[in-house]
């Protein structure tokens, strides 16, 4: 089974916008993967004129909120950095080895939410030209309004990106478990783009080639080992192996 990966467009957000943006994106993805019986909830964002849908599962909502809190805490310690949140869906498979059984996660889909958290620009009160001085607060307000509108458009584009992906790729989705609302999933908060971890669905084994490997140490030269195409990723997005 393929592990499909969707890299969502990067969004430039300010700190106070993180929660709403992440809620919107993560819940939209989860709603499309909560294929058990759901009673959808419409949620209107406060900062944007966008309505997204939650699947209505309390545990999932709690899980998402916890991860968003984690991410926000990390952002506060690492300001002005690009970051990525990974939402992965997996199946538990029981692997039979000669001497033991092992439950292993088989990832079949990964979503990467790319955020660039910025801080608002400070406005200088000095005017260096002969033009009449513009009230910096007014200019800032207008700039913020323009930026907010642009972010709303971008966020809507990301939501459409999710919908298109869900529509175009359906074959890899496992059969529905009527006892569960949603497929098992995990949300990973990476530390920074320099430490992004990639997961693949292959069993763990180490192959060292050109110094690149995924976090499970899986890479087969000449063959795309997991859903990610390593060659297209910039080097700083992959973690170098430690030692040999």
């Amino acid at each position, binding site marked *: 089974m393929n592990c499909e990966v969707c890299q969502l467009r990067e969004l430039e957000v300010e700190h106070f916008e993180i929660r709403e943006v992440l809620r919107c994106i993560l819940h*939209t993805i989860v*709603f*499309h993967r909560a*294929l*058990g*019986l*759901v*009673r*959808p*909830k*419409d949620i*209107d964002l406060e900062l944007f*004129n*966008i*309505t*997204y*849908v939650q699947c*209505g*599962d*309390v*545990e999932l*909502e709690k899980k998402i909120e916890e991860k968003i809190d984690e991410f926000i805490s990390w952002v506060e310690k690492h300001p002005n950095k690009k970051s990525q949140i990974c939402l992965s869906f997996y199946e538990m498979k029981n692997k039979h080895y000669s001497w033991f059984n092992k439950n292993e996660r088989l990832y079949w889909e990964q979503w990467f939410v790319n955020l660039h958290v910025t801080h608002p620009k400070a406005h200088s009160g000095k005017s260096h030209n002969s033009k009449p001085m513009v009230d910096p607060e007014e200019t800032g307000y207008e700039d913020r309004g323009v930026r907010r*509108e642009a972010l*709303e458009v971008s966020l*809507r584009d990301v*939501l*459409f990106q999710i*919908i298109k992906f*869900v*529509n*175009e790729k*359906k074959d890899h*989705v496992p*059969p*529905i*478990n*009527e006892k569960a*609302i949603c497929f098992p999933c995990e949300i990973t908060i990476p530390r920074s783009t320099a430490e992004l971890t990639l997961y693949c669905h292959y069993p763990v084994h180490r192959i060292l080639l050109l110094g690149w490997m995924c976090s499970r140490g899986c890479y087969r030269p000449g063959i795309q080992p997991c859903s990610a195409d390593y060659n297209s990723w910039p080097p700083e997005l992959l973690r170098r192996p430690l030692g040999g």
Partner: protein
Amino acid sequence: MASPHNNTNTESAEMEQIITEFFPKSLQIIHESRSPFMSSRDYSGEQMVSSSPSSSSSSVWPRDEWFNLALRECPAAHENLDLWHQSYFEPMIVDVILVAAPPVGWEPERDFSTSDQYPFHWNSDQEESGSEGKIEKIVERWVLQYEGRKARDSGAGSRRFSNTLQTFYKKSILLMRSLYATVRLLPAYKIFRDLNSSGRIRSYTLSHKVSSFLEPFPCKEEAEMQRFEFTPVDSSCGRLCLSVLYCSSLLFVSPESSTRMFPQYIDDYVGSPLAEPLKRFSSPTVVQGSLLSSPFSRRHGWVYDHGKASPPSFSFSPSPNHLEKHGSISNPSSCRFQPSSLPPHLPDLPPVHKKNMSFDECYPSPNFTPSPSP
């Protein structure tokens, strides 16, 4: 033990039921997010978080649980769907129509240099309660269809067909999820939200029309709309298809008319030294801001002409075209229209035939749940 042949017949019947249910469910999703005051979205807080979505007994409203999407049963969405119950090969066309009041003093026979500026169709046939008619514009057209294909030999056996059924239902569920999310992202949803969420009276509303025939838009108008096509869901005998043509932006602009008021200085604004502290603000010339709380209200304003209000003209970017006549209008929400100085040019079109629809029919909850895949 049931014979493979019987199993195949049962699964074939279940497949047909899924296809049949596709139409009312899709229509319900569209209808609930486009028909004001008919939404299952309960602003009084019905949507309680529940760890057990199947506990519908705690719900105020009975719910239709087809495609694992528990929505409040909406009789209006199931009205007059006999055609699709009898034959799901008929396409279902759902037009979402923006309906607004005509401007005061507007004369249909006025000639304008171009019809492109005025996209609205003039419905001169409706005269209800003293209304002079309504201006209508199709802002969305949803097309739902089951395209059949040549009968295939199912000689591979019932097991393969059973897998196909499970997969078909799973993909149909995914399609419904996407539809549910998409209707909330399209521009018309903002109008719906605005109409539903506040008690303010608007000069416009949303209506919808369901038909089985597709009256094409003029090429120019269709070219200006955007299309979104959901990936079809294949079954053994055909595929479910769903697409939407929509106006990409619904901008409200100030009317370009001779009755537009010139800006005037207001000396006695509240807080002005010239104003008495408790003086009521009653300038004869008032420029009011947006009537809408939505983003496209930023670029418009209404101008009062001696107490008369001018509703915004509906300008669709890129430049709109006039609306072609189509079938009947269903379920227009009542609203009061304010007078306007908008001088749209509308083509000389045959009157709209109004279809009377009642919403008494209830749709039974599904008793079909495909068994999980083996």
